[in-house]
């Protein structure tokens, strides 16, 4: 079973060196314990482009699809047997990256 951990942030500040070190250590543990699938940090919402090609012509919009104070700053895709394990990892992850984390299951196992 895979879960998406969305890292929610509300300022433009990037992770500090100590936060980065904590995230690296957490990632190493995810790998060692077999939870690691993929992870990454994202450029800020200002760097986003939205493409809508449902009509006749593709429309490009500068900026994120949703303007909000809080935004997606990064993510993990993790492997866990159930939500309790996923929530426990997310709880640790939130401490390590010093951000809020939203946990959502992937559809279909």
């Amino acid at each position, binding site marked *: 079973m895979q879960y998406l951990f969305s890292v929610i942030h509300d300022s433009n500040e990037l992770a500090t060196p100590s936060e980065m070190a904590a995230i690296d250590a957490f990632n190493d543990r995810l790998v060692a314990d077999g939870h690691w699938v993929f992870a990454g940090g994202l450029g800020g919402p200002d760097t986003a482009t939205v493409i809508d090609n449902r009509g006749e012509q593709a429309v490009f919009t500068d900026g994120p699809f949703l303007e909000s104070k809080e935004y997606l700053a990064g993510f993990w895709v993790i492997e866990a047997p*159930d939500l309790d394990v996923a929530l426990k990892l997310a709880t640790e992850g939130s401490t390590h990256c010093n951000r809020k984390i939203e946990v959502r*299951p992937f559809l279909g*196992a």
Partner: protein
Amino acid sequence: MSATEVRAAITQAHHEEWARVLAALASRFGDLDIAEEAAAEAFTTAVRRWAADGEPPNPGAWLTTTATRKAIDRIRRENKRAAKQTEAQMLYEHDDPPEPPDEGSIDDERLRLIFICCHPALSIETRVALTLRMVGGLTVTEIAHAFLVQETAMGQRITRAKAKIKMARVPFRVPAAEDLPGRVSAVLAVLYLVFNDGYLATGPNTGPVRHELTTEAIRLTRLVRALMPDDGEVAGLLALMLLIESRRNARVSASGELVPLDEQERAAWDMALIAEGHQLVRERLASGVAPGRYQILAAINAVHTSARRGRETDWSQVVALYDQLVRIDLSPIVVLNRAIAIAELDGPEVALATIDRLEDRLADYHAFHASRADLLRRLGRARESRAAYDKAIELAGNTAETTYLTRRRDELT
């Protein structure tokens, strides 16, 4: 069997077996929705079959077997519709190696069901609704009615919860020992909320007490106690509920007005519930383990229910227990209740000084204003007392309480 006998047998079986049947199915099929539907169908079938064939010798086993067949039928039907969906997928729980039962806890399927319904990933309102439906066996209509919510909204809340549990894969198991205290306290919070929603029912067209909720909360807490007999806080919560419930007939007058503790007709208290509550409190005291919040609250209620008359209440004991409670529960409401006890020991002036300091945090809480009003009245400060009563009446949602506060205000001279 006569129709009356069948109805009585079904009602009893529903009370005793619903949670067991549903938990057995949820455990086997790993799907609350299937378990709920099949359990309900089994009870419907029982109405018809028991009338014709008589009550089976083991109603619980009969219901579980019938419900299991219904569930398998449904899975077969759905598998035909969606051929890709294999039975193995529905039974994913069985892919996992069996968890060893935790020390000190009984790995009963009903207990796992309770933990799933009170899972921290669900909102508190959802936990309450799900627990009453899945463990208590109340219908969606009954739950909606109890919480003054539209039936469709309540139905959706429960459906969404079942979908989340399934899709996010909330596990059907008793939490690991290290997580157990937190998870147990989440369960107890749900049960206490159900009890309080019955005990302090609010709403202009609502009776002052909803006995169906207090009774159900006690029944469920008894079940949790039977499943976790060694947990002190479970015992404490049960004792607390029993000791509050024991005063139920004395607490609201014939005219629907709240009767404060010291004015209650003690002969109307339920001595059997009091004896049971006191026994639990004594057991916890004898255990020598430091008590948690519910155990201390139960002990406070035990002091109240030990006094033959209101004025014989051992207030120094009550204050000592609140002192203990303040150390583990920082809620301003605890400070408020402690101050009310202090008033009996050191006088209203001392208590009022403490209560006034809580204004920032409790300005929207009716009991804060009601307590102030009472203390100001005792101090002869009628004008300020009237203003406090006005505020309390404005904020109180319980009809018996409003009636009582209004009379007290109107008696001020």
